[in-house]
């Protein structure tokens, strides 16, 4: 895959997930007790052999920069190629909305890279994919663009790109829809395009008034290109709303999902931390949960995900919750159906309960 360069587009819409993304972008959301969402696509690229990765920075880039840094944790701190940051353009072009302008203003990065293909992804999907199969598929067909989709097994609301395909994978329709159903072929924001075609697509679309890469560059111009799609049948989740965030984290409590995502041949890499193994004390009770290093547990934890450095006091009961880094849940408190952002302190004997399908969100650094 040394012929493929990766681009991760972090220009997503955050509307449905506001409470958690007030001070950070979706792709920096802590996930599964240890990771950030962007780790999945970035690790998949690196594991597929991609050595040149550009990250298109969002307007609030600090959490991304702080997490990725030199790219060393993904073996991308290299002399040649490696990790590149592509900042959003300056205020001059702020009249035009959408992400297309970011691609347009960074075209020289693409032109200077030596690779023949571009693999474009977004940072809000959870998956562990080897993209080399995608490249082989693309090279075996006459595709200009190859996409990857998964087949939905249940109904869900939310903006998704839905495909219709012929038997051989040729895409016959491509549209953004407000809901998906059992059997819908849902795009995973993965596009493999020959670089020359990609540059032409960006340039032409932008110079003719386009604003959004997907909508204006691909969907509206679908007739100009041979678009194919191949199916991914492993675990995938799109974190585009608070309920999707909650549900996909809880999915990791299923051992098969945990194994598939993290314990296979290809690991998911993330920024390293030197935390101490979890200390379960005498009064600890733990069931069906994921607990990250650095935690100290003296209470009861069930169906929950604890990030690093969380302390759980005596008599505490935590259920169906996601507790992010360094929260302190003090003695005799009750926490159920809650998402606690980092550094939250819940002092003694407090009761916090969200609804079964609508978790209570506590923003970072709050003391209750």
């Amino acid at each position, binding site marked *: 895959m040394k012929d493929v360069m990766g681009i991760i587009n972090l220009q997503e819409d955050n509307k449905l997930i506001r409470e958690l993304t007030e001070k950070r972008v979706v792709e920096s959301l802590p996930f*599964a*007790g*240890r*990771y950030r969402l962007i780790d999945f696509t970035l690790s998949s690229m690196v594991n597929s052999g991609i050595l040149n990765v550009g990250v298109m920075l969002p307007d609030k880039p600090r959490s991304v920069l702080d997490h990725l840094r030199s790219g*060393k*944790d993904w073996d991308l701190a290299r002399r040649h190629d490696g990790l590149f940051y592509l900042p959003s353009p300056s205020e001059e072009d702020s009249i035009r909305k959408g992400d297309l302008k970011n691609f347009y203003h960074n075209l020289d990065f693409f032109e200077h890279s030596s690779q023949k293909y571009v693999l474009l992804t977004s940072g809000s999907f959870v998956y562990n994919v080897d993209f080399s199969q995608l490249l082989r598929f693309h090279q075996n067909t006459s595709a200009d663009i190859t996409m990857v989709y998964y087949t939905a097994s249940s109904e869900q609301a939310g903006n998704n790109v839905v495909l219709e395909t012929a038997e051989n994978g040729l895409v016959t329709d491509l549209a953004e829809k407000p809901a998906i159903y059992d059997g819908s072929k849902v795009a995973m924001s993965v596009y493999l395009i020959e670089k020359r075609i990609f540059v032409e697509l960006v340039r032409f679309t932008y110079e003719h008034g386009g604003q959004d890469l997907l909508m204006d560059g691909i969907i509206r111009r679908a007739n100009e290109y041979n678009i194919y799609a191949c199916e991914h049948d492993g675990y995938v989740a799109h974190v585009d709303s608070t309920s999707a965030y909650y549900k996909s984290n809880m999915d*990791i*409590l299923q*051992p098969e999902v*945990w194994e598939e*995502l*993290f*314990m296979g041949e290809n*690991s*998911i*890499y*993330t920024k*390293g931390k*030197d935390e*101490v*193994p*979890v*200390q*379960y*004390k*005498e009064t*600890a*009770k*733990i*069931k*069906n*949960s*994921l*607990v*990250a*290093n*650095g935690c*100290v547990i003296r209470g009861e934890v069930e169906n929950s*995900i*604890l*990030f690093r450095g969380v302390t759980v006091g005596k008599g505490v009961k935590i259920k169906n919750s996601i507790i992010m880094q360094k929260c302190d849940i003090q003695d005799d408190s009750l926490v159920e159906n809650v998402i606690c952002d980092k550094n939250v302190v819940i002092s003694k004997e407090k009761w916090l309960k969200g609804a079964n399908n609508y978790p209570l969100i506590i923003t970072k650094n709050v003391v209750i």
Partner: protein
Amino acid sequence: MRKTECLAMILAGGQGSRLGALTKKIAKPAVPFGGKYRIIDFPLSNCANSGIDKVGVLTQYRPLELHNYLASGSAWDLDQKDGGIFILPPYAREKGADWYQGTADAIYQNLNFIDLADPEYVLILSGDHIYTMDYSWMLEAHKMNKAEATIGVIEVPWEEAPRFGIMNTDKTGRIEEFEEKPAKPKSNLASMGIYVFNKNFLKKYLEEDAKDETSSHDFGKNIIPKMLQDKARLYSYAFEGYWKDVGTIESLWQANMDLLQDEPPFDLKGEKRIYSSTQSMPPHYIGPDAKVKNSMISEGSMVLGEVENSVIFPGVRIGKGVKVTNSVIMPSTIIRDGAVVDYAILAQNCEVAAGAKVVGELGAITVVAEGETVVAEDSGKQAG
């Protein structure tokens, strides 16, 4: 190379034969400890936290796992342009090759490296002990005393003193006498095997000692006594805190168990950060029927059974109906459904078959060696 004030040399070449099955395939400093670490993480992390950025690691016995683990030193921030970690195994010269013959000989054979690094001071450390220490304070004391050598010492219980090299000092801390394992000790200050030397002073004594064919080329037996004999300025530096030699099965087991107390005597969480080289693994998963009490569990493990009073390293699989108590389970070991493990140390990558039992007792910990499988009907392997 950029000029260095203090160069650290870690003696990591020993087999640690009293660790039996645990060191059959790996050197003692590579032995896992504390649910996540290796013994060598302690002196290395101490160096990183003390501002020492040039460290030589002298290896000899079965160094592959250790070399692999240390890699470029980046886990301890020792992956540097002009410093960092230097792995120093024995090497051949025109006249042939010599294994390291003793602790002093190992340093002597690397004098060329020390000359290249050209430090003012050389800090000699062993790779055998569990402790956190800021060596810069010891270096400060060494400078303030205008010492030629400073020896780290720790107070041990008087009954234990006969097991150690004991330093007899005057009121200022200057060492007057050194007794190796004295039957009737005059002091209870034991040598920790941590030395700071002025570089040229050390060099002189090593070169002299190398010429002495009757010498066993050991710091404690030969070099220090000779320095004392010559009335050199030797000072002690008293260390206070947890310091444990984990050179036997029992002491290694006990030191791991010490970490499980409600207020541990050595709290990994409370101490300065211990760095280690780790694979990227997810948080561990505890199953719906699991029971975990009074234990430490690390990343990438899956626990479906009962774990009590135990230390579980990364990547361990504990099946349904399993009972693990009072044990240390090292990385990537699999304990299948219904098995029982009690008072045992399971080395890396071993397997306990479904329904099998590995049962030791206090004072006679059972050890299962790296890569071995214990089948059912087997009452476990011989303690190492």
